[in-house]
Each structure stands twice: as structure tokens, then as C-alpha cells.
């Protein structure tokens, strides 16, 4: 058993995977602005399954509402750190559940 400290919950408050990932992708990421949005596929793709390694890099992505992804953005476009994070999410999810269009 770990040695009991003054606040047993402190370690849980400090561990935040999302911030860790963002910081790793972009140490300068500004974590103050919320990016709302849902996955949108390019229109030219017809019914097919996209393997994880063929996900278009220029995928337009809107994150599901409430994901609370906070990162640096530029006016009208997603910042690089956000795109990288989204790419990470897409690849991870596609390994188990390929997207059917």
C-alpha cells in the first residue's frame, strides 16, 4: 500500500491524460480555447471502409460536443496540435472499429 499522504486524492487531480497528450504534441499549446466539433468525411468518399493507415491527412474534423478538447487554434482553422491529437484519436479508434462510409 502506498504511504498515506495528507491528501489521498491529490494524485488523481494531477493526472490528466488529455493535457499530457496535448503538451507532448505541442509544448507551447495554449489550453485556454475550446474547440467544438464532429467527424465529417470528405464528400468524394463513397461507401467503403478506410483502413487506419489510409485516413486522409486533410480530414475535416469537428470534435464531438463536450469533448472539452482545449488547444491552440487559428481563426477558422485547427491548430497543428489539435490535428495531431485528432489523428491520434482516429487511428486509435480505427484499429478496433474501422469507419464505414
Amino acid at each position, binding site marked *: *500500500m502506498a504511504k498515506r499522504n495528507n491528501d489521498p486524492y491529490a494524485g488523481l487531480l494531477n493526472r490528466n*491524460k488529455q493535457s499530457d497528450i496535448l503538451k507532448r504534441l505541442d509544448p507551447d499549446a495554449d489550453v485556454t480555447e475550446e474547440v467544438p466539433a464532429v*467527424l465529417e468525411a470528405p464528400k468524394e468518399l463513397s461507401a467503403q471502409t478506410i483502413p487506419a493507415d489510409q485516413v486522409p491527412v486533410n480530414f475535416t474534423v469537428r470534435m464531438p460536443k463536450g*469533448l*472539452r478538447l482545449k488547444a491552440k487554434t487559428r481563426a477558422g482553422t485547427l491548430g497543428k496540435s489539435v490535428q495531431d491529437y485528432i489523428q491520434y484519436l482516429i487511428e486509435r479508434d480505427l484499429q478496433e*472499429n474501422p469507419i464505414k462510409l
Partner: protein
Amino acid sequence: MLTISFAAQKGGIGKTTSAVNLAARFASKGIPVLLVDGDAQGQSSTFLGQQRGPNLSQVLIRHEQTVLYDFRPTREFIIKDVRPNLDLIPGDPTIAQVEGFLNEKKFGRERVMKRRLREVEADYRLCFIDIGPTVNLVSALALYASDGVMIPIAPGPAPRDGVADLLDRLDSMRREVDHAPKLLGYFATMLDTREKISKDLERFMLSLPDDLRAPSIRKDVRVAEAPDEGKTIWEYTPGWEKSRNDAEFRGARDYARLADWLALRIQEVL
């Protein structure tokens, strides 16, 4: 998000009570918590004073007949802010129908709940699942979705037998699907040391490995009364932290000790 389930193959031993009170305790410490009620009785809503609304069945089957861009995300089925930092996916009797839907799924059936919860993993630090006592597909999905499991044991021979059955089930999961939640610990519930069956349970608890033996919950009528008013034990017995009257506040004190233990155990094991 770390997912902890409360499981025991015996009803009425304090799984829902423990899941609700512990979830509320962690939430009160500023930790975002999602409470998932995997029991067909769906009592967590009542315990937290909520009306029936969206439920776990909808979360589990809503993908099955839709396509990607038509689906409703898991977060649409979450009751937000039932308490500060605490959100809820209630259970309900239709959970039994989930089995029929998912039986038609050829692959990856056991992963369904894990995938649904993954959609909201960035929103929470902890997810507590109250697993129903019935051995069915939904309880298997919940165990597969869990990183750790806590096992309550009430006085009497049946709950102890239920522990053995549950451990067998976890072993079976490891063999069949290469994944099972880590056993975080056991805790006794409804202890009343005036009763012989409680003394037997205390002896049984002492036979368990030290690191798996969590603080016990003594019998306290206030723990049973709180849900009637839609309150957690912390809300039902305010002032428990300042009072020196252990007898009056033993339920709140015991759950606080258990929450402290679990917080450290989670950080140590998961």
C-alpha cells in the same frame, strides 16, 4: 479515465450504495466522475434523486442499426451534473434487451461498453460502474470495460460464495478474451459485530491478503435511509466531519475511509 467496477454475484449487499457514495465522495474532491448504473433495477437514479431519463441500454445499442454520421454519441445519454463533478448514465429494466441486440453482433461484442465509454474518456478522471448481480452479457461488458474491480461482501455465506464465483469469472475472462480488470480490493458491508455472521465475515476478511483488504462499512441505518430522500450519505448526515460522535456518523466515516483507501489504491495499482 480509469474505470472501476463494483461487482458481486449477490444482490442487496451494498454495491449501488457504495458506488453512489464513493462516486459522490471523489466528485466532492474536485475529480470529474461518471457513474454508470449497469443494474436492471436502475436504483442509482433514485439514490441521487434523479428522474428516469436516458439509460445504459440506449448507450449500448444505439450504434447497431445506424451509420457513423447518424449515431448519437454516448454523451447525449449522460445526465450531467447530478452533483458537482458527478455525471450519471442510469440503468433501467430494458438492459435485458441489450443482450438480444448484441447477440447478432459477430465480432467484438465484449468491447461494446468499453468503446462507448471511450468516447467520453477525456471528460472524466474516473468512471464507476455498478454491476448488477446477474451473470449476463451486460455484466461481462462492464467487467471488460473496467480497469479495476472492487468487491463488496456482506455477512452471510452466500456473499462469500459469490466472491469465489466472481473470481472464477475473472479467470475465465483472462483465458478467453485476454483481459480482466485488476482486483483492487474487497470490503465488508453491513457489519454489525453483535451478530455472529458479522464476526464470521470479519474472520474471513482477515484471511484475505493485506493489500486487498479495504476498510469495512459498519451497519448504519442512515446509509439505508439516505436514498429514500435522494441523498448521498454525505448529504444525509451533514456535519459528520466535525462531529466526534462516531456512532451517529459511522456510515459517513466508514465510506470516507474507504474512499481514501481506494484513491491511494487506484494510484498504486492502475
